[in-house]
């Protein structure tokens, strides 16, 4: 296992309010790391810092042994694929055209045959090759998310960062997208995702980082991340975990009269 991305003692504040406080994170090849926490805990900010879209106020970020700041945007894009939160374009580009934009850091001015081949491979891998000529704007939310994931793959990155890849998706699509992401990790990519739902996270993830008020919550080596005490520290007292296979599910406590 090699560590591809290391963030040490990261600090970030926005408008005088501290968002991240001394966060240290390590991302390893072949692992699916999931960042969890409540709304406003700084999950997306951390991911955006890792993607180089935000500059931390303090701390260092190393990508494959090099400082992130020393990498040009193009070099960075060849290593890190970042899926922003869902955004709808105005023009009905075809699926193929949207995915092709992932090649921007490899293309000089106009994409060539090789780029188109890589795009088709990405579409096949995500399982939407049949959609390639459809206008992006006419697809369902789940299909659109798959297209954007294919775009990240077309970038041929070593590290994939996904910001809430399952938001706006129905239950079935959530599972489909996460199974896909799981496969990326199994094929030696380093994958980091921000997720809302701890249940689906526990089903697919390898490593979990809990953020609470901008700080990383840790747990002792004897505990598992889905242990009730750990979860209560992050999300509050009103929940408990139920064992499921070798992992667990999280449910809120309801009054049983």
């Amino acid at each position, binding site marked *: 296992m090699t560590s591809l991305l290391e963030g040490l003692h990261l600090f970030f504040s926005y408008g005088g309010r501290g968002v991240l406080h001394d966060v240290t994170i390590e991302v390893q090849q072949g692992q699916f790391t999931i960042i969890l926490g409540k709304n406003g805990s700084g999950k997306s900010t951390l991911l955006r810092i890792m993607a180089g879209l935000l500059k931390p106020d303090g701390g260092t970020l190393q990508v494959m042994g090099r400082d992130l700041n020393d990498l040009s945007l193009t070099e*960075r894009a060849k290593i890190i694929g970042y899926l922003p939160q869902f*955004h709808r374009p*105005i023009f*009905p580009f075809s699926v193929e055209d*949207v995915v092709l*934009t*992932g090649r921007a850091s490899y293309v000089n001015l*106009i994409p060539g045959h090789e780029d188109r081949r890589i795009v088709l491979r990405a579409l096949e891998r995500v399982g939407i090759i049949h959609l390639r000529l459809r206008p992006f704007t006419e697809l369902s939310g789940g299909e659109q998310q798959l297209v954007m994931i294919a775009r*990240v793959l077309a970038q041929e990155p070593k590290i994939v960062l996904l910001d809430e890849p399952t938001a706006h998706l129905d239950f079935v699509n959530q599972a489909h997208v996460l199974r896909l992401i799981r496969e990326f990790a199994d094929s030696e990519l380093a994958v980091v995702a921000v997720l809302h739902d701890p249940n689906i996270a526990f089903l697919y993830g390898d490593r979990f980082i809990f953020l609470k008020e901008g700080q990383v919550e840790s747990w002792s080596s004897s505990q598992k991340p889905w242990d009730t005490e750990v979860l209560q520290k992050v999300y509050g007292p009103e929940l408990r975990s139920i064992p499921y296979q070798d992992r667990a599910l999280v449910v809120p406590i309801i009054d049983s009269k």
Partner: protein
Amino acid sequence: MQPRLALFLIYLIPVPLLIGSLFIGPADTVSTKEVLAWLTGPWFAPTPSAVLDSGLVRTIIWDVRLPRVILAFLVGAALSGSGTALQALFRNPLVDPYLLGLSSGSAFGAALALATSWMPLQVSAFSFGMAAVGASYFLARTRKSVTVISLILSGIIVSGIFTSLLTIVQFLTDPFRLQTIVHWTMGNLHNASWAKLNSSAPGTLAGLVWLLLFRWRMNVLALGDEETRAVGLNPEHQKLLVLIPATLAASASVAVAGVIGLVGLVVPHMTRMLIGPDNTRTLPASLALGGSFLLLVDDCSRVAASFEVPIGIFTTLIGGPFFIFLLRRSRVGWEI
């Protein structure tokens, strides 16, 4: 229509149109036969070419119609190419080259030159057009980034300021100059000449070639700033790389032909409706279609009356209703 067929037709149309336009003019000046004889003279020589060459026929075809036809095509291409690029850049189908203050800046520059003779008209119109867009850009720039909304807003403000300045010039000038200024702002091609073409073509062509080179980047930009950055391009740099040539081409055209309305808005839409939003195909097609459109409108205006009506009036009167018709009956090529 099949996009492939549409594309084929769009590239085919300009050829007969450019040649055919040489035959078009006020009814009684030169006959079709004379034009044909002059055009084919060098190869077939049915009429002694020396006779044709010295006279009215040569002047009308070579010095009057040819520069006008080429200028009309070039200006139409520049306005619609620039419109296509800016719409992708702003991810907004309501944008045209005039939105960022280009037209009001150029009009002010032209008026200033006409009223005070401080600088040649075209130079002044061109510089102020570029300056107005530059001002809009820098006013919109906050914390090293330019959002689409702030750019459009500052464009509206800058347009307003230059329109007021234009009004001041109009207000202070005499009726003769006022009339010249008003005519200029309505757009005109009737003063076309080789000299005008020579002064406009370098800027226009440079801008258009630059846009053509960067046309795929517009696809990347059209998906959003964050999406652009994620794939390794700096959206701020890319915006400038599109904004500068788009403004250059449009300014160079506006400087010689005045403010010709709606071409930069309508033609990009027509092109996208016909062949889709992919700028690698849409941009070159919009050049061909825009050039053909303005040339055709100018041909109509040349046949219609024995006196000249400002071309800007025709483009708006023809383009406006046609655009509404297209919007109502077909897929428009964009979504809110």
